[in-house]
């Protein structure tokens, strides 16, 4: 029994320590975003990297998400004689929830996992040690630029996701089910308010930060060897996704 408590205490202390480290890591990253010299070229490179990794996937998924929602929405709403409102349904669902959440999870899967394995390989091949010997801070050259790039990328990609999704919804309902252009986009314009776009973007911004934070942390504190790096990259995706879903619930309950 005592043994159990001792073990429990030890593992609790370990977890709390880890959590502290995780928090401090974010603090340092945020700090180095603002401490000059700021590495603009590195930020742009990273946006490029995250963008090219995820853009086509985002377009594909958003098109099918919008299309499927259009189909379902149309069938369901028609039963209540409200088929004119399908544009409202698709656009609100995308802007408020699906756009930021699905987009961020996709970015976590594509770019987040490769960031974690990139930094993980750097760690096990002593590249961060070499930086340290040179008296250069990895947060300035890696964590901070990745963080800023991820914020910008996820917001932009979410915008693209929503845009493509809303049009895909129209193509399905308008093209196949005969909803008119006017009634679909009327439903969008009449019911979407500026706050929907703003709140959706705030969510995307937060999710972008989560993806960067988790992936750089998991990569930097990777386990040993190729197996450790593989695990770091998987854990980066899983933990990012969980944190995205949890924080989305919290933000939704505060916002709407």
């Amino acid at each position, binding site marked *: 029994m005592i043994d159990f408590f001792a073990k429990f205490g030890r593992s609790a202390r370990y977890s709390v320590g880890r959590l502290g480290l995780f928090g401090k890591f974010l603090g340092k990253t945020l700090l180095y975003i603002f401490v000059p010299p700021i590495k603009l070229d590195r930020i742009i490179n990273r946006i490029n990297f995250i963008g090219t990794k995820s853009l086509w996937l985002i377009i594909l998924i958003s098109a099918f998400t919008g299309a499927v929602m259009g189909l379902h929405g149309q069938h369901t709403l028609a039963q209540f004689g409200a088929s004119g409102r399908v544009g409202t349904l698709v656009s609100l669902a995308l802007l408020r929830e699906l756009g930021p959440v699905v987009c961020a999870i996709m970015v976590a899967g594509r770019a987040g996992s490769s960031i974690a394995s*990139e930094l993980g390989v750097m760690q096990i*091949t002593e*590249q961060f040690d070499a930086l340290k010997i*040179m008296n*250069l801070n990895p947060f300035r050259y890696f964590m901070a630029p990745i963080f800023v790039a991820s914020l910008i990328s996820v917001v932009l990609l979410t915008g693209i996701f929503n845009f493509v999704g809303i049009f895909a919804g129209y193509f399905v309902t308008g093209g196949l089910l005969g909803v008119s252009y006017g009634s679909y986009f009327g439903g969008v314009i009449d019911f979407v308010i500026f706050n929907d776009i703003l709140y959706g973007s705030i969510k995307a911004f937060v999710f972008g930060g989560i993806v960067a934070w988790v992936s750089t942390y998991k990569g930097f504190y990777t386990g040993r060897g190729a197996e450790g790096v593989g695990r770091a990259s998987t854990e980066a995706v899983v933990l990012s996704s969980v944190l995205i879903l949890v924080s989305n619930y919290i933000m939704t309950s505060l916002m709407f």
Partner: protein
Amino acid sequence: MIVVKNLRKELAAQQVLNGVDMTVEDGEILALLGASGAGKSVLLRTLVGLLEPDSGEVLIDDVDIHRSRGKELASIRDRIGMLFQAGALFDSMTVYDNLAFPLREKTRMTRTQINARVEKYLQRVGLSEAVDKYPAELSGGMQKRAALARTLVGEPKIIFFDEPTTGLDPLIGNSILRLICDLHEEFKFTAVIVTHNFQKVFQIVNRVAMLDEGVIRIQTTPEEFMEFEHPSVQNFVIEALQGPLEAVKNDSQG
């Protein structure tokens, strides 16, 4: 000057360093010997501040590297260079950028000055042709030389070399030692060279230290080292002189 006092470090329940005492004089080259797994790399990593010791101190020009922070630590780090055993080249950068990066970030050198400096050192390690290659596109030996050039390019005052010639063919290995020796005459840096291959290295070093069972068994001149009456040292000398196969044969005979 580097003074190491009673350094202890335990890793994975194994006492790797068990009270290491050692000094490295200004401007000298010290060879650090020891069997594989003796803890040479761990000792180097502790000397440069990558590993925290459990106890003991490392004084670099009278300042304890493990107790200094901020500007003081930065000033020590600026004097130190290290060649990692596996190179530790930045794999996202070309060979050129690997060398230019620390110069760009830490010095006020102009683009032309950096260019000249990088080319000088790449030429001296025989890698002028490979400037635009990425580390993954180089052979193991070329990576080692690129890493050596990156260590030297900032012209640090104190340099730690973790096995600079391991994995190179004898010809290139010799030329690397020659290069270290020439540069030492030019810049008078302080150096610690970890190596197995001490016959070659003995020609360029002032003193030798041997790490054995977690302590420095002996620190002396190359000549005295060869004569030192201690089983670990004698075994090491015999193995190195005869080659491993001979030593194994001798063991099985007697």
